[in-house]
């Protein structure tokens, strides 16, 4: 049989790699990690295996966004490759832990590492600005969590501008998309807060929010970030890195907005309080006026009493006036009543001088 084409070894390897890359570009393979190692601080090697087979994997350390250990179950997105030495391997583009045990292990390892770096330090947290008008939203516009967020926000408040970055919020490509959206908002600096939203899901669904690069991007955001991811019980590393954590997308909407109904109640209450205050002030004034009138009346009574007392005193004084006594026919005699002396006699009508001709003691 005549061969249709003869390849050199390297050409054959190159063609094979091209075919595999075309046929399995971004193939996703799931298995257990074994023989995990990092060479020279930048080249990552491990085997991916199941009960019956094993395949070698290679990746660059910068692409490793979840801590790995032997025994962890992971999912890798990779390009199959035949090396120059004829060894088949997967060149891994992305790897994520799968299954509750692996996710939990990876979560704890990364949490410990980033906590030690101070990425989650409370003093780094910024409050959401007051009176927010522009909000950047990162979510899938098809997600129920996003719909809940918009519904609650529209019910509570208006006049807001939402700039929505539509992204996948689960799966192996989600972290990169969310990071791009974060960069988009930070580069433009138009919004006052960024909300990262995703409704509830399984631990695998929410694993993207424990991606190291994404967690670092959240912590580094210039614009305050609020997360509303999963349900109340879910906690992600993005939550720990965010400035403000809402328990759900709906809760995020509550934290980002005021409630117009509450404001109406508060306004009415304020107006009522002012009304009551005014009435109280007017009542106070009436009481004050009455007090003034009562004091006035008391003063009049006192003046009248004093006037009466003065009149009585005047009457007594009038009784004691010598003129009044003289008027009744008495006379006032000055000088010594001695025979031969001249005495002065004052009557009501006259002043008289008289010589004493006789003076004797009365019996």
């Amino acid at each position, binding site marked *: 049989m005549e061969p249709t084409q003869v390849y050199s070894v390297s050409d054959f390897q190159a063609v094979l790699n091209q075919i595999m890359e075309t046929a399995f570009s971004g193939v996703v393979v799931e298995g257990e990690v074994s023989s995990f190692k990092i060479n020279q601080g930048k080249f990552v090697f491990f085997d991916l295996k199941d009960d019956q087979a094993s395949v070698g994997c290679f990746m660059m350390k910068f692409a490793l966004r979840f801590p790995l250990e032997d025994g962890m179950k992971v999912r890798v997105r990779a390009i199959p490759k035949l090396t120059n030495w004829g060894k088949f391997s997967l060149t891994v583009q992305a790897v994520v832990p799968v299954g509750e045990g692996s996710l939990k292990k990876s979560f704890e390892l990364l949490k410990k590492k980033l906590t030690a770096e101070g990425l989650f330090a409370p003093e780094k947290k910024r409050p959401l600005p007051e009176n927010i008008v522009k909000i950047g939203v990162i979510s899938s516009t098809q997600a129920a969590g996003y719909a809940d967020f918009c519904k609650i926000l529209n019910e509570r408040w208006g006049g807001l501008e939402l700039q929505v970055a539509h992204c996948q919020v689960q799966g192996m490509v989600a972290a990169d*998309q969310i990071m791009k959206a974060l960069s988009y908002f930070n580069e433009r600096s138009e919004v006052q807060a960024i909300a990262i939203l995703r409704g509830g899901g399984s631990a695998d669904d929410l694993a993207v929010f424990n991606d190291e690069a994404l967690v670092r991007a959240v912590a580094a955001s210039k614009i305050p970030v609020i997360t509303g991811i999963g349900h109340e019980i879910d906690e992600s590393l993005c939550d720990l890195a965010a400035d403000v954590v809402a328990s759900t997308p709906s809760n995020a909407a509550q934290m980002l907005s005021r409630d117009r109904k509450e404001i109406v109640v508060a306004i009415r209450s304020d107006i009522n309080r*002012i009304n009551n205050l005014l009435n109280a002030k007017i009542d106070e004034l009436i009481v004050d006026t009455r007090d003034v009138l009562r004091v006035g009346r008391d003063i009049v009574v006192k003046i009248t009493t004093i006037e009466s007392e003065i009149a009585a005193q005047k009457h007594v004084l009038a009784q004691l006036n010598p003129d009044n006594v003289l008027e009744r026919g008495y006379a006032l005699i000055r000088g010594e009543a001695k025979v031969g002396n001249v005495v002065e006699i004052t009557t009501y009508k006259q002043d008289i001088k008289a010589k004493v001709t006789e003076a004797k003691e009365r019996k």
Partner: protein
Amino acid sequence: MTTKKKNVSEKIAELKAGTDWFYSDDFVLDEASQKYRDLMNLAKEIERDLVEMKNEIKIIDEDFSK
């Protein structure tokens, strides 16, 4: 001179300042009646604004999957 139309947050702040006046040392009964009427009108305006205002949602054109 141009007069900028106040948004609802500014109106709420104005209402609060007006309310505070009634509890301050500046309170004068002679002025209170007119100020109270002004605040009543402002409160009605705010309630109307709160009912009418809507949020604007813009989906960004950028494709973040690329």
